[in-house]
């Protein structure tokens, strides 16, 4: 699509960027005495609406909805955004397979703001209509369903679906003409691989298991990472120090939460140049990711306040903002 087609959308997003939370507002939130104060401050900033009031989870849910409402309204081509919701769609698949195979019903385990919402996914899995799923998902759904049914190994089912999700994200990135989508896909897959490798190392998984879980990407070699995970945490850090994720290795040594924070900050660094882009889909994708990051940060702060964590503990988990 011609970049000029996005002129209206980008200008509208530019206006909306003015209402994104800045680092100083996040600082104010952290300094609030209680969760109620945080919610009042957020309400002043326009978060939530008259229905959500000062209910934290309703407010955060409403903000997620608002973001997608804007994107749906302004984007000339919504298919560009599919890749952003792949993880939610595959999560729905995983949750539906487990619910059907285990016959245990749980509430609030599905995402509804994605291409295949929970109820639809549950219907597909219940009726084994995997042909209704997109091509790259149907075979995976069948495999994960059969695996869980025959082996009752929930972790193996997770690995199959999660790996398929990463492969789908990477493939979508490779096929995309938009640089921001390519960068998003590459970063998402590489960071997911690093997280998987760290977890596998800590739980002492076999090389075959790690190989099965890791997805290929350009910036990280799945094979080398798998071997490093087998050798130990130092080997993972050593391998990463020679890649674009060297700083992430340092954060990993610090703590898992420092690494998570580094991952999100890195994503913000990647998308920040879009603030100066007047055309193309880049600023729209960046806005969507910035909102997700903002909502995640606010959720961390509110959870910290609810559980009366010290401000410092909350502060070290707070992400950098886009604006």
């Amino acid at each position, binding site marked *: 699509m011609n970049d*000029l087609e996005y*002129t*209206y*959308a*980008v*200008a*509208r*997003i*530019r*206006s*909306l*960027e*003015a209402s994104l939370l800045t680092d100083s507002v996040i600082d104010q939130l952290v300094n609030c005495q209680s969760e109620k104060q945080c919610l009042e401050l957020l309400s002043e900033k326009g978060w939530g609406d008259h229905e959500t009031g000062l209910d934290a989870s309703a407010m955060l849910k409403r903000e997620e909805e608002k973001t997608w409402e804007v994107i749906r309204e*302004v984007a000339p081509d919504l298919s560009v955004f599919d890749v952003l919701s792949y993880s939610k769609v595959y999560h729905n698949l995983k949750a539906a397979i487990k619910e059907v195979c285990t016959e245990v019903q749980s509430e609030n385990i599905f995402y509804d703001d994605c291409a295949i919402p929970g109820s639809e996914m549950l219907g597909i899995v219940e009726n084994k209509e995997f042909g209704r799923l997109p091509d790259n998902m149907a075979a995976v759904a069948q495999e994960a369903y059969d695996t869980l049914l025959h082996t009752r190994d929930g972790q193996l089912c997770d690995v199959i679906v999660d790996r398929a999700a990463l492969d789908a994200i990477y493939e979508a990135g490779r096929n995309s003409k938009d640089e921001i989508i390519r960068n998003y896909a590459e970063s998402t897959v590489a960071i997911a691989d690093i997280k998987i490798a760290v977890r596998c190392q800590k739980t002492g998984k076999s090389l075959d298991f790690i190989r099965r879980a890791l997805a290929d990407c350009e910036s990280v070699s799945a094979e080398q990472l798998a071997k490093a995970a087998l050798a130990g945490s130092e080997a993972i850090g050593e391998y990463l120090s020679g890649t674009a994720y060297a700083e992430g290795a340092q954060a990993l040594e610090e703590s898992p939460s420092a690494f998570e924070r580094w991952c999100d900050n890195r994503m913000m660094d990647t998308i920040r140049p879009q603030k100066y882009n*007047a*055309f193309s889909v880049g600023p729209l994708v960046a806005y969507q990711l910035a909102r997700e990051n903002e909502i995640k940060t606010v959720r961390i702060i509110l959870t910290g306040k609810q559980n009366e964590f010290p401000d410092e503990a909350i502060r070290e988990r707070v992400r950098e903002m886009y604006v």
Partner: protein
Amino acid sequence: MILESLGIVYALLGAACAVFLAGAGSALGVGIAGQAASGVVSEDPSKFAKVLIMQLLPGTQGIYGLLVGFITLSKIGIIGGGAVEISPSTGLLILAACLPIGIVGLISGKSQGKTAAAAIGIVAKKPDQFGKAMLFPAMVETYAILALLISILAVSGIQV
């Protein structure tokens, strides 16, 4: 007989080029800037006046083209009566004289529209920086003015 009348045809073609090309540039530019302006106003109607000024900046090329077109038409007597006999070579000279504003108007109009759209982004986020934001698309105007100057001097200088 046909050869003799070619002079006026060339001259008219020159006037048409000036109006058509420069006007098309402005239409493209104002259209692009207008989309950006609509995006901002849909979120913040209070910025209407500022973004409207930005949108209008690429509109000048069309006016320059119109001006050169008028001068050309009055020079060859189509406006004001008393059409003059123009040789084919003089007609071609007038056509060449009209081309600067036509071509530069088309290119600068579209470029100015894109710059104005980007500058509207500044107004959207920092309305107090309106003055600075306006300078960026105004820079593109320089080249349209230079082309206008040459077209007017050339058309006026041709003896008919």
